[in-house]
């Protein structure tokens, strides 16, 4: 489903250096037209409909509509992502089917930006030549150390 930008809603990210949608698109598809200061998808045929531009747009200007070469018209899927969870609204083509709403957590126990890479577990040996990785063996929750074939219990 290629992304599209709603003319009235896009404010070009207020002329900041990079726009949010352009920054996030993994396929380099979103571009800002310098004259109109509006964003657009420059190659909808290469869009993976990952919704990352939709989720990140501060003004909810980006949506996705089903690829018309195989998706019948009229349905929509809309995310609202906060720092801790995501809300989805799914609307069916048949308006007699009640829209579905789901809410799922997206992270747990660690504030956005605060993932601390080191120090969760002790590193057993500091030997660059050993197979022991950082945080091992403690992070494997095993006393057995760098696991070898014959040291692992068989069923």
């Amino acid at each position, binding site marked *: *489903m*290629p992304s599209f930008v709603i003319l009235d809603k896009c404010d070009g990210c207020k002329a900041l250096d990079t726009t949010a949608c352009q*920054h996030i698109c*993994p*396929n*380099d598809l979103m571009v800002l037209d310098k004259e109109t200061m509006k964003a657009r998808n420059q190659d*909808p*045929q*290469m869009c*993976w*409909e*990952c919704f990352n531009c939709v989720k990140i747009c501060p003004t909810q200007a980006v949506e*996705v509509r*089903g*690829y*018309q*070469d195989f*998706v019948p018209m*009229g*349905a*929509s*899927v809309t*995310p609202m*992502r906060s720092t801790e969870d*995501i809300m989805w609204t*799914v*609307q*069916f*083509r048949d308006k007699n*089917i009640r829209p*579905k709403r*789901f809410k*799922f957590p*997206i992270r*747990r*126990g*660690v504030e*956005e*930006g605060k*993932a*601390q*890479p*080191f120090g*969760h*577990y002790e*590193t057993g040996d500091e030997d*660059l*030549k050993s*197979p022991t*990785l*950082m*945080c*091992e063996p403690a*992070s494997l929750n*095993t006393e057995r150390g*760098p696991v*070898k*074939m014959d040291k*692992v*219990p068989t069923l």
Partner: protein
Amino acid sequence: MDNFETITVETDLLICGGGMSACGAAVEASYWANKHGLKVALVDKGAMDRSGAVAMGLSAINMYVDLNSGNNTLKDYCDYVRNDLMGITREDQVSNIARHVDGSVHLFEKWGLPIWTDEEGNYVHEGRWQLMINGESYKVIVAEAAKNAMVETGGEIYEHVYLSHPLMDGDKCVGAIGFSLRENKVYVFKAKAVFVGMGGAVHVFKPRSTGEGFGRSWYPPFNSGASAFFTIYAGAEMTCQEVRFIPVRFKDAYGPVGAWFLLFKAIATNAQGGDYMQENAAELDKWEPYSRIKPCPANLRNWLMMLDVMDGKSPIYMQTAEAIQRIAEQAPDEKSAKRKLKELEAEAWEDFLDMTIAQAILWAATNVQPDKKASEIMACDPYFIGSHSGASGAWVSGPEDLQNDQTKDEYFWGYAQMTTIKGMFAAGDASGASSHKFSSGSHAEGRIAAKSAINYIMDNNETPNVDQAQVDALKVEILKPLVTFDEHKGYTVDPDINPNYIRPKQFMYRLQKIMDEYAGGVSSQFMTSDKLLEKGIELLTYLREDVPNLAATNLHELMRCWENVHRMHQAEAHVQSILFRDETRWPGYYFRTDKPNIDNENWLAFCNCKYNKDTNEWEMIKRPVKYLTQ
């Protein structure tokens, strides 16, 4: 191109890519580099938060060996992988990843990833090796830890920089070159060791959808064979280049089926309601011994389905309603049955919303309510994803301590995860013959490779010798499509149609048509033969000859040009390897009609290959498969 500035970055370790394996590499490398006073730089064509195959999120961690519970052993994991790949696997590699992967998963949880747990606090398994997660932000979280590790230890991150070529010093890799997707800048990275983790490849073959839905391949369109190109161009020995992956997914939008098969225990049937796994079971005799071991290899499950498709028994359906009904019926009373149904429904939709949102739209647009109606499934197009159920990638050294007397000389050469090129390391989709590592195993493998690379740098701590003439020549070559367009654009009214150049999109279509028709793509129902492959190679040669005529109007299109050159190299390695392997081993991935049977006597072996970029020649090498566990 005088208007391009050249930025030179000097580092000790260069991490190419920002996906799962690269994020693992970034964390681990930062840790060890910091201790030893070394510098790390990472380059991603996208933004690390959402780059690579996990851009959208995932709904499961597909590799968790749970060694600590005592329920599984490394041998169990090796057995599973070896059988799924019809005997062709590097057990030293698989078990090395398996012994480290649980640590990566436990770290993900510490970093904030919500992994499902039951009332007793145990992980909820989707299948024996898979854990259920709320994974919308899986990549965001893993990237966050990687970025924080880099920042804390003085590493440098370059986003929106596209890498096009490795830099070589004879048989040693000494860096990489690429360009910014935002400004007229060429980037030259000089490094003592280079980690390749730029994912697999899609759009080498023609996808099923060719209109607006062209980009809706199962595998993300932004992974375009950079890992394969880097290792091939460097002259590294490659392995399993014939082992593509063809997933069976919900038709057209390619939503995941794993939860349906594993969690909800649904079955798939043909249009008449027949269970092809049972009705076509006799076919399994031909693919022994692998076909008789549970779980039945993915490619054979594909094959039994394809037999029905070829028999005209389509559409093939996932019987979702039946499965949901069966689970609900197990509830003790009506109220809890209702609650259970609601729960299952949310789980089913989350499976899509976390990793294939398009499928949710397609279901909504076709009024599918899974508890009421079955949904069509279908084989996608072929992909190169060595971390999943494919196996293509570079031939890398295994770890020293897991070798036995027979494997040591074949599978070990000094540094775990190093390719046959000095200083070039690979992991995730970039390293071959170690399938079924998925997101978590790729992360763990990236960590193994990074520590190993830091070790290599300490042993070989010399300033990289980067030949300026090589850099200058590559700079001209890389920017040439822009020059070509400028030179010729005035000749015709429509810049798309000009006899003097080829735009990247047409180049890609041409590649895809060749692969589709000669190398067993969707329109040939994955069938090919020696004669078709030979013809395909001839047509690929013309395509290669047209590379210097690629034209680009801007930086975005310049990236598209090189993406397609990368894809073309993956394609060549693929056809050469299918042709070399004189048998059919994975009938549900591709079928050699001239050699329709498996030949364990002669071909229980790795098909490796090496490319010579000066002569454009491929050397094919047969290497023995040696097991550790049997």
